[in-house]
């Protein structure tokens, strides 16, 4: 039972990592850039939700606030693209990496100014109940996280495989110029994917905030989500979820069975091992470069 409990709580954590990793992968798949600010976007989404729901701010109904928050974050993602990232169109990956790191700093600063640096709790109906199943205790939030994550991964995966927009996004990332020639409005597609990434970040943020307290530094779980995305092989949506689950499950087991001090390095050590031995992740998409 002990093992099962660890497994389930790891699963719920892993789903949050997976959701943030989904955001990375979305943007990577569609624009070939890596958004280092995704974790901070998640934090911002959670704080937007706090601002809408908590009584000391606006005090809206939770279920009314969810679509509002998603809308706000989607709009913000689109605005970020128009205002900043569109200028980087066609520039090298590394320039975008550095830009998004800076963006993360700014987001953290702005959130700190608006909501303060004290940890806060989201007044979420998900945070209340526990469910007992044969000696295993699961909170409602954990169940919600797992269900929503699975649904989102499946939905986004199908979106990329089946819909016209999803295919256009993939084409735009593979070869921008060729995509132009095929009549794809590459820049607008890029804006759309940033909006989508904002929405995904907001979902992840709401779920994260439902599971516990929320602080400005929450964005740093983006680093664990990196591990998730890399393990899954950047560019694969189910891979991102798998990676998230692997990282999430390793954490509680490492904390349980490794001596103190060694446990928290487990996800990063795994990340380094994967990068060394399978540099393009477990679900590799890269082939050798030909001249």
């Amino acid at each position, binding site marked *: 039972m002990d093992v099962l409990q660890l497994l389930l709580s790891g699963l719920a954590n892993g789903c949050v990592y997976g959701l943030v990793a989904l955001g990375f992968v979305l943007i990577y798949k569609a624009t070939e850039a890596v958004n280092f600010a995704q974790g901070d976007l998640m934090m911002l989404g959670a704080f937007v939700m706090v601002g809408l729901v908590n009584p000391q701010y606006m005090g809206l109904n939770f279920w009314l606030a969810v679509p509002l928050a998603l809308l706000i974050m989607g709009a913000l993602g689109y605005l970020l693209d128009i205002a900043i990232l569109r200028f980087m169109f066609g520039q090298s990956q590394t320039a975008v990496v550095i*830009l998004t790191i*800076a963006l*993360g*700093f700014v987001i*953290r600063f702005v959130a700190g100014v608006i909501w303060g640096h004290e940890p806060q709790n989201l007044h979420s109906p998900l945070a209340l109940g526990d469910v007992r199943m044969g000696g295993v205790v699961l909170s409602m939030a954990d169940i919600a996280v797992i269900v929503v994550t699975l649904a989102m991964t499946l939905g986004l995966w199908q979106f990329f495989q089946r819909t016209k927009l999803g295919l256009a996004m993939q084409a735009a990332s593979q*070869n921008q*110029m060729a995509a*132009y020639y095929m009549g794809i409005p590459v820049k607008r597609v890029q804006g759309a994917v940033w909006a989508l990434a904002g929405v995904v970040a907001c979902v992840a943020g709401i779920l994260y905030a439902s599971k516990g307290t929320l602080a400005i530094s929450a964005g740093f779980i983006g680093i664990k989500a990196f591990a998730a995305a890399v393990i899954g092989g950047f560019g694969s949506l189910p891979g991102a979820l798998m990676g998230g689950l692997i990282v999430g499950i390793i954490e509680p087991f490492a904390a349980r069975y490794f001596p103190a*001090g060694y446990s928290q390095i487990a996800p990063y050590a795994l990340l380094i091992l994967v990068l060394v031995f399978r540099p393009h992740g477990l679900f590799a998409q890269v082939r050798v470069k030909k001249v």
Partner: protein
Amino acid sequence: MRFHFKTSYDHDIRLFPDWWNFSLYAALLLVLLALPWVIDSFYLGEMTNVLIWAVAGLGLMLLTGQTGQVSLGHSAFMAMGAYSCVNFMELGLPFLAAFLLAGVFTGIIGGIIAIPALRLHGVYLAIFTLALSILMDDLIVILSPWTGGVNGYFAPEIWIFGIEINRWAAPETWYYLALGTALMVTFFYRNLLRSPLGRSFAAVRDSEISAQAMGVDVARTKTLAFGLSCAFAGLGGALMGLFAGAFNNETFNFLISIQLLMAIIIGGLGFIHGAFLGAIVIAFLPQFLSIVTDQLGSTSIPGLETGVFGMILIAFILFEPMGLYGRWLKMRTWLQLFPFARRDMFRRQKSYLKTERLR
């Protein structure tokens, strides 16, 4: 505008293209040497800080600016430099030997770490190094017999040839130590760029495939770049740790390496001057902000520093990707060519991205 009439191949690789250029740098050196008599001890300390950041920045510049590999993990190597320096000193080595050995040690470790990292490109390398710098924090705690764990170290007394280097009693000694290190590293760096190795760094940066076709051993070049870069970062880290007076596992967290990367980008990627200009920005920005908030009469805003830093960086990447030094180069060209300089001379080439996954 001056023209250099080249009569031998050596003219292309001279340290200074002409006497005018040489005298400019000589004058700058004289000003720097005379600085302790000009400014008070507070600003002297700040200048020392600038020089220390510049040493570490030169390390990252060698990797990112010259060889084109982004590292978000240089704080790990700075920590390694600081800890190994103190450890060598505790073994009884004199400071100067311990300091240089710390650089060599960090460089060797960096070179070893580079071997698996060589297979990684762009973003993957960035994530790999980011993971390294986060791991370093925990590693320092785990290796507490050598690192003092969370308690860290207090900087030991530093003696060089019978002169005590003390930050509080004699700030000018620290200043000269930092200045000497910065000069040494700059000179080494400049000479490196003139050597075949430096040329192969640039070749790898501009195109790995072309470099390989030209006979450059890409793996060896990258390893050497990583190792040398880590060695410089180690020297910078050793100075930073000792200058701070005390350091522990949290002193060199991964934000330091991100700040370092930001510094060299704001300064100007690929230029030695850029490392120094970036160091000036990063060292003086906190002072500047605190003065401004004091003037406005408001209380200090937590996180203001990093927020403003991020905004400055975004502005630079969008509007001046060549950094401060690039802006100066543009201004100089405009003056030299006056009135023939044209706006389009420095326009960014329009480019389209192709995937790196499905080539």
